[in-house]
């Protein structure tokens, strides 16, 4: 028994040493880095975009995922990091009010839907179906999650009725989507983009939620060590040719940032993007449509950024 324990310990030791070497010799050592705080719901596209950005510009993004407001809380205390990708406007508003971000670029538009299991077994068609006794309804906390805040705003009294009927409230829409997949819930009000991340879910649009939209945006933090580089990544994320196409392919609706003009090198690079995407197991839907249409209420801070970084793009090369 003792012998086995000893050899197991020795194996563990060897694994640690080897692991340590692999970690040290990782290709990322020594390259410039950006610390990105990213809303957990946008993990999938963010990872792909960060990988592309590393290939294109040799900058490694170190990404910290969490709920938008909790990320903001930690930035408030630590005053560290280069970029914040927040899933909702109110978090970015707060960040601006607190003087934590200097420039903000819109990235993704999300809409509220009723998510149900694929095939809609409970035949949910309208808001009143959610109040039926045989429907186990899940909602997000309106205090903490942006989806809850938006739903409460657009639904008004209906929200209170739903809340009284709900089987459970959870802190994030991702939690609810997970529960729907497991079958512990029959319906939940979540973002369309979250529903599209789960294969066995279906999104149902209902008229009462039509006006419920939210813009996710990326902001350069005042604590950024290299604001020019951080801004470059923010624009890369939002531009239709670069981040936008990845967002579309992963089920998000990009707002359509500025065109990415980086010359021939990048265009050639884009040509083989389709293959790489399909290799990674995603369905290629082409570059996303540029939508920032009139029916969406654009808050003042989402308008084209002006200020100290306007000349950065020109100065860089």
């Amino acid at each position, binding site marked *: 028994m003792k012998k086995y324990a000893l050899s197991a310990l020795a194996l563990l030791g060897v694994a640690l040493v080897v692991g340590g070497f692999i970690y040290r010799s990782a290709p990322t050592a020594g390259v410039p880095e950006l610390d990105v705080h990213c809303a957990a719901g946008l993990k999938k596209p963010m990872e792909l975009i960060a990988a592309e950005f590393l290939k294109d510009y040799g900058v490694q993004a170190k990404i910290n995922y969490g*709920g938008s407001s909790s990320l903001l*809380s930690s930035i*408030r205390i630590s005053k560290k990091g280069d970029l914040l990708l927040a899933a909702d406007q109110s978090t970015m508003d707060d960040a601006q009010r607190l003087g934590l971000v200097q420039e903000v670029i819109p990235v993704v538009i999300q809409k509220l839907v009723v998510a149900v299991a694929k095939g809609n077994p409970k035949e949910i068609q309208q808001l009143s179906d959610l109040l039926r006794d045989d429907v186990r309804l899940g909602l997000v906390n309106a205090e903490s999650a942006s989806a809850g805040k938006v739903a409460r705003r657009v639904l008004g009294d209906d929200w209170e009725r739903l809340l009284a009927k709900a089987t*459970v*409230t*959870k*802190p994030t829409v991702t*939690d609810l989507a997970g529960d729907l997949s*497991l079958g*512990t819930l029959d319906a939940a009000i979540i973002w369309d983009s979250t529903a599209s991340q789960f294969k066995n879910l279906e999104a149902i649009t209902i008229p009462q939620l039509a006006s419920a939209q939210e813009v996710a945006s990326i902001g350069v933090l005042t604590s950024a060590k290299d604001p020019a580089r951080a801004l470059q990544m923010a624009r890369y994320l939002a531009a239709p040719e670069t981040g936008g196409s990845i967002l579309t392919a992963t089920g998000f609706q990009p707002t359509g940032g500025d065109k990415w003009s980086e010359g021939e090198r990048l265009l050639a690079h884009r040509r083989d993007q389709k293959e790489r995407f399909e290799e990674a197991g995603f369905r290629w839907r082409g570059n996303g449509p540029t939508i920032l249409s009139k029916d969406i209420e654009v808050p003042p801070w989402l308008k084209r950024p002006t200020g100290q970084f306007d000349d950065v793009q020109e100065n860089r090369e």
Partner: protein
Amino acid sequence: MSPKSTDHRAASSLPFWIVIGTIAATYLLFIGVLLASSATYSSPGDWLRALRAREIQYAIWLSLFTCTITAVLSLLVAVPIGYLVSRGQFRGKSWVDAALDIPIVLPPMVIGLCLLILFQTTGGRWFEEFIPMTYTVNGVILAQFIVGSAFAIRTMRSTFDHIASRPEEIAMTLGCSRWQAVRMVTLPLARRGMFSAASIAWARSMGEFGPILVFAGATRMKTEVLPTTVWLELSVGNLEAAVAVSLLMVVMAVVVLVAIRSIGERP
């Protein structure tokens, strides 16, 4: 704090007490500074506001209620299991021992997810016909119990390890059955250990949060316990309230733990 010994070596042990005293003082100072620096993030006004909020009052009550039930349940399970692992000799004992630690090793969220999946199985659904678990207060207790009981079992096991089996055996030669010997000899000796097992289970449950969030949800006025409140307040960026509720938890926990221990120490 000083040793009672009166022999000639007493003077030479002074440096020893100074060293370990310094280590203890530094450690306590660290915890003190930790709490004090957090306290600067909240004001008495935040405390009052936290105490007045209906949701927080409910969370305080629910936390106290569920933790107490969990502590009692954990003890009921920990005494027999602790006794078995301590006194019993059987094949595969080291595996049983390791299995008992699984709830301690598993990440909290995973425990919640496992529970959620368990009650989706046919057996689980059947059970929920009688006692609903998923998204309910019962679920809060079950989630706390899984981790709390594992710690209580550890404590009971080492308690029984430190009680000699001889008095129990003598009682049996004097005509006691095994039941009687354990009840009249060993359990009274294990009294302090039982109090500390219960208080460990209680304290663990007080901080439990991951599995509760997944399995019972964060429904206000229903399954929201104090750690959930802290998490919700923190995720809205309301640092002041989060800190106020956290410190409130510390105060409550210290008071309850001191009370349990002092009852346990009483001869």
